[in-house]
């Protein structure tokens, strides 16, 4: 008998007989009932508390805020997609400027070392935000691959204020994740961190040292 069949057989022929599943009451997970202002305030408080940097911008000229961040952080090489409106607008605004725009929609095998060693920042869109925990949720695409938010030392994420929802529980339900899961779904709440050396917090241990969230209104 295969390992699979013996394990399943043992589980099915349980000595103490079949088990009854208890009911689950999920009411504690929902019903936050926050207004959009409260939602935004929660989001900002939580993500700032874990070292995320929130910058508010107007939807019409958010790219100016982006340019300012890049200047302030001294970024010379920015990884950015091509198709998403965020990427398109960013490319337009930064064209011909001091920041070199790096194509990311290439098979990673062709530029692995380049990405690890020379990319200074990655710009991504986000699908939404979660107020309760101060989280961004991303479904990486061919246009904005998974490593764009992971490998460079700075991750700049663009979030629209009106797509912040109360909880992860709400997000999973309202976007029907159960029937739409992508190969990789991500929640990001702050920059990479560790406390493995005597409980002392340090940022950027493997992923980005800094996370900037451009919130568009």
């Amino acid at each position: 008998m295969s390992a699979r069949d013996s394990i399943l057989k043992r589980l099915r022929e349980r000595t103490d007989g079949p088990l009854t599943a208890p009911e689950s009451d999920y009411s504690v997970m929902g019903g936050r009932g926050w207004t959009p202002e409260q939602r935004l305030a929660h989001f900002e408080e939580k993500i700032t508390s874990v070292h995320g940097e929130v910058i508010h911008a107007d939807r019409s000229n958010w790219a100016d805020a982006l340019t300012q961040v890049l200047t302030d952080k001294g970024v010379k090489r920015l990884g950015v997609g091509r198709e998403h409106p965020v990427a398109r607008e960013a490319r337009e605004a930064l064209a011909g400027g001091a920041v070199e725009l790096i194509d990311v929609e290439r098979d990673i095998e062709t530029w692995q070392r380049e990405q690890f060693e020379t990319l200074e920042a990655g710009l991504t869109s986000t699908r939404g935000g979660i107020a309760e925990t101060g989280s961004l949720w991303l479904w990486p695409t061919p246009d904005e691959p998974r490593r764009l938010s992971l490998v460079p030392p700075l991750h700049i994420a663009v979030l629209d204020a009106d797509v912040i929802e109360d909880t992860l529980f709400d997000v999973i339900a309202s976007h029907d994740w159960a029937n739409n899961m992508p190969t990789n779904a991500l929640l990001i709440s702050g920059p990479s961190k560790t406390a493995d050396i005597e409980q002392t917090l340090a940022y950027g241990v493997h992923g980005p040292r800094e996370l900037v969230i451009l919130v568009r209104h």
Partner: protein
Amino acid sequence: MSVQTYTPQAFHRQAHDALGNPQIRANFRQAMDGLMTKRRDSFGDWDVEALRDLGASIRLRALAKLPDLLEQLEANCQANGIQVHWAQDGDEACRLIRELCEARDAKRVIKGKSMVSEEMHLNAHLEEAGIEALESDLGEYLVQLNEQTPSHIIMPAIHLNTDEISDLMHAKTGTDKTRDVDYLTAAARQQLRERFMNADVGVSGVNFAVAETGTLCLVENEGNGRMTTTVPPVHIAVTGIEKVVEHLHDVPPLYALLTRSATGQHVTTYFNMISGPRKPEEHDGPREVHLVLVDNGRSSIYQDDELLDTLRCIRCGACMNHCPVYTRVGGHTYGTTYPGPIGSILMPHLQGLEATQDLPSASSLCGACGEVCPVRIPIPDLLVRLRKEAVGEGRGNVEGAGVKRNRKEVLAWKGWQWLATHPGAWRASTSVAGKFRALTPSKLGPWTQYRTAPKPASTPLHVLVKRHRQVNRQEGES
């Protein structure tokens, strides 16, 4: 630093040594005090008892439907392109993973944190086959550099302080000696990035495996888990069969409980949900994703209605953070993969009671572990049950049951029971004991190490009460 091997058989000696080591005691005390405070504060706005009820019900439901959910998980993973493998024990799982590596001519494996892989000694197995297995979680990396095993399931290097880590990294990797944690962290980042780039296979654990979607969820702060599951061309996830949950919406409550119970965080930096390998149109991510489902004793625990609760565990470590014994003796003292209260109720099933007979007794039964457990595992009850099994008073369905049974002790209790239920004999014996009280020994083994030996009273309590009543009666009559 010297390499020491710890075993559960030597628990008493190891506990004695740890208690005499002020460094170990200080490191753990400080860390555990901080974690307890942070946990309490992090549940601030929540109805924590309702959330624990929900967490417990989700885990119990998953266990009630376990074989069906495992089949559903397998089918959905396969539909998503994840290859699923089953292993009855740790050796079989190691062999499976080694064969996957060998078939791809993989020589370098990078690992995310996985307690199951520790449980089955995967690193040693791969090294023997000439495959390098490198830990990438900072704590695990340090512990591996130090040729040790984790002393805590969430914070593997909690037993080391900054000076010890600075010395270790200096000796093994040539970094400067410094107490600058940012410098040490940045150095480790640099050292490990090269290894991620060159890794042939990434091995990770799984926090929750979602049956309805075929999704593997990984909880982490560092990003090494994302690196491990994204950078190498092959990702192998390894997990115990009990980690499955039924629905995707079962995940948010467990995740909320896990981060707060483990480290007092309201959320971790990353929550990584993997539902398949790289698609043709995608530009990064692994070409292959494998899931290895490991039984290793879990289906035996599953047979018994009471012991079953052991399998609810979501591996948060809150029970050890709150355990007065763990805090004083540290994680290595237990000599097992999982230390602390959860280890004491889990390891007897994985290694048998003969090797682990002292662990269920390594508790004051103060109840703190049960009070903080996010999924309400009745840990103290399970400790008592395993004590019973160890002395042969249980159901006898744990390997090594009865190993601690001592005929003299059994006889002594039987005798006491007989005396206590026969008043005449009891009175006679207490009266005799009182007369010869000078002859009772003052040393009674470990009991009298820190206590004075009890001596029978010269006049038994029964006699005193009788006299007292007589005096009262006479006074009432006069």
